[in-house]
């Protein structure tokens, strides 16, 4: 397998002086293309901070981060924005959909913002993704009219819209009941198997973690297992 990304000696400190809090303490990690990894660890262990850095939404205090052969630390905001749009998808715990838009409009957002408009091809792919998520009947529904599980499936479809190499999911099932959670995980697993998309899923739930082929345990700012 080839390395999709590799981080070395990541340090992240919030605040300065006496109020400084070091969350990551020299964390190193390598993720192969096509992996489906669960990120485990207690609250405050640095899971969310690691996902944020891997998602290029934040830079570490020090350390290196290379993804698809590109140096993510040296890249400027404009380059990272374009990279994120093309190669990284996000699924958040609270789905974080755009409330004034329909399910389809939410899904096609990453492509539309790249192309400057909603193309018919983008809409067709959005419909296809929502159908695969079991939401064929909800395509044009305002997201406010969807259930929690449906919203999270819309979020997964949106994360996959630009066919990213990496999808980062921060507690994607944390706000769902067991049945909905397993339904979302089944979809993620299916996408991972069929399209080879790499997933890194942060979770506290052992059952969710068990669905993933690799478990990465973070503790006290470093990978412990």
């Amino acid at each position, binding site marked *: 397998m080839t390395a999709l990304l590799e981080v070395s000696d990541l340090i992240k400190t919030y605040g300065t002086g006496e109020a400084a809090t070091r969350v990551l303490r020299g964390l190193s990690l390598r993720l192969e293309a096509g992996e489906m990894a669960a990120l485990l660890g207690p609250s405050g262990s640095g899971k969310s901070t690691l996902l*944020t850095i891997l*998602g290029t*939404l*934040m830079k570490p205090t020090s350390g290196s981060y290379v993804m698809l052969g590109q140096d993510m630390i040296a890249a400027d*905001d*404009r380059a990272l*924005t*374009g990279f*994120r*749009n*093309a190669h990284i998808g*996000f699924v*958040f715990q609270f789905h*974080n*959909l*755009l*409330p*004034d*838009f329909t399910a389809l409009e939410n899904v096609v*957002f*990453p492509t*539309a*913002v*790249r*192309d*400057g*408009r*909603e193309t018919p091809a983008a809409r067709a792919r959005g419909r296809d993704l929502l159908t695969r998520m079991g939401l064929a009947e909800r395509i044009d529904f305002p997201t406010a009219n969807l259930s929690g599980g449906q919203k999270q499936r819309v979020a997964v479809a*949106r994360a996959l819209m*630009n066919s990213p190499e990496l999808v980062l999911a921060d507690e994607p099932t944390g706000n769902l009941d067991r049945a909905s959670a397993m339904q979302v995980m089944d979809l993620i697993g299916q996408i991972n198997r069929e399209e080879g998309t790499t997933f890194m899923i942060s979770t506290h739930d052992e059952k969710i973690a068990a669905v993933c082929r690799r478990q990465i345990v973070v503790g006290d700012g470093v990978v412990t297992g």
Partner: protein
Amino acid sequence: MLYALKIATRYLTANKAQTALLVTGVAVGVFIFIFMSALIGGLAEFILSRTVGDLSHITIEAETDDPSLLISPEGHVLVVAERGRMRTATLSEAATWLPLIEAVPGVRAVSPQITGAGFLTRGAQTAQVSVTGVEPGRESAILDLAGYMVEGDVRLGSGLIVVGRDLADDLALSIGQTLRLESSDGVAAALTLGGIFKTGNGAIDGARTFVSLSTARTLFTMPQGVTRIEIKLGDLNAADATAVRIRALTGLDAVPWTDGAEQLMEALDAQAQTGYFLKTFALITIVIGVASALLLSTYRRRPEIGIMRAMGAGRGFVVFVFVTQGALIGLLGGIMGAVLGYLALLPFPSRDAFEAGTLPMDITQGSYGLAITLTVIGAILASILPARAAARVDPVTAIGQ
């Protein structure tokens, strides 16, 4: 940036009540802008028409000759022929210039005149008067004499005279009476009172008389030429430029009404400045209103902005979304305010029908296009601060909210 336009439009339509309030606020500002433009413009028109409307907009007077001197070969002044007290200079070539002046663009009427002073006598009563000889048929070319007639007829035939109401009252005159008019040149004529006018201006109504040009020639012993040419323009504001043109065309000393009207011009300028201030305040209100509303929107939509940024929307995209919202609010409010302003001004009388006691609103001076353009520009400027604030939103903290 079609997609940014869609997002901006959706944000505005998502909260219809808030957007409607915001647009209405902008429209009120534009309405005030238009109302003030029409009022200040109309007021200026009203003042000008009342003060200058009955005056000549451009006057050409014969230049008085310098004193004539007879000088000996040794350089001694032998004879000095001083100027007479009364005007005797004439525009002897007036007949040649009149067609040329009439052809100048913007010239509405031209009135060649012979003016002078005299004494009007009826019985034992005498009054000092100014005499204006005008061509029959051009009695109302400058002063709207026909419009001011209260008795008799404005038509100035041979042997007829028209006087002001106050003068007629002073001398107890009535239509058809015979009067004696003796000019400053000592020539007297018996004239029949053909009409009485009342302009409301005491100086005119109490001392001004009108006779035909031929009668004036006799009275002032002026067989040819005139003493002055009065010119009326379609647009009195074009007097300066037209006077320059006539001077260049004829070489005559054409003087616009603005010469010697500095105080009036200063007053009108001060009034216009007041209008600018009021309109500026209206625009500032619009800018503050739009900026505060969009800042509030930016704060409310921070999580969504964070999501957009996470999904690959650049800072420029976010800026464009919010600036477009500002532009749309400005455009909608501007158009709405302009329409409301126009409708509100419709019931007011037109500029040609201004009357004392009513607001002299000039619907044609509403500056509708300017109001809409300035509003859109103001709204765009107002949205830059919120847009920049939105673009600076940290996606990590915003998504976590």
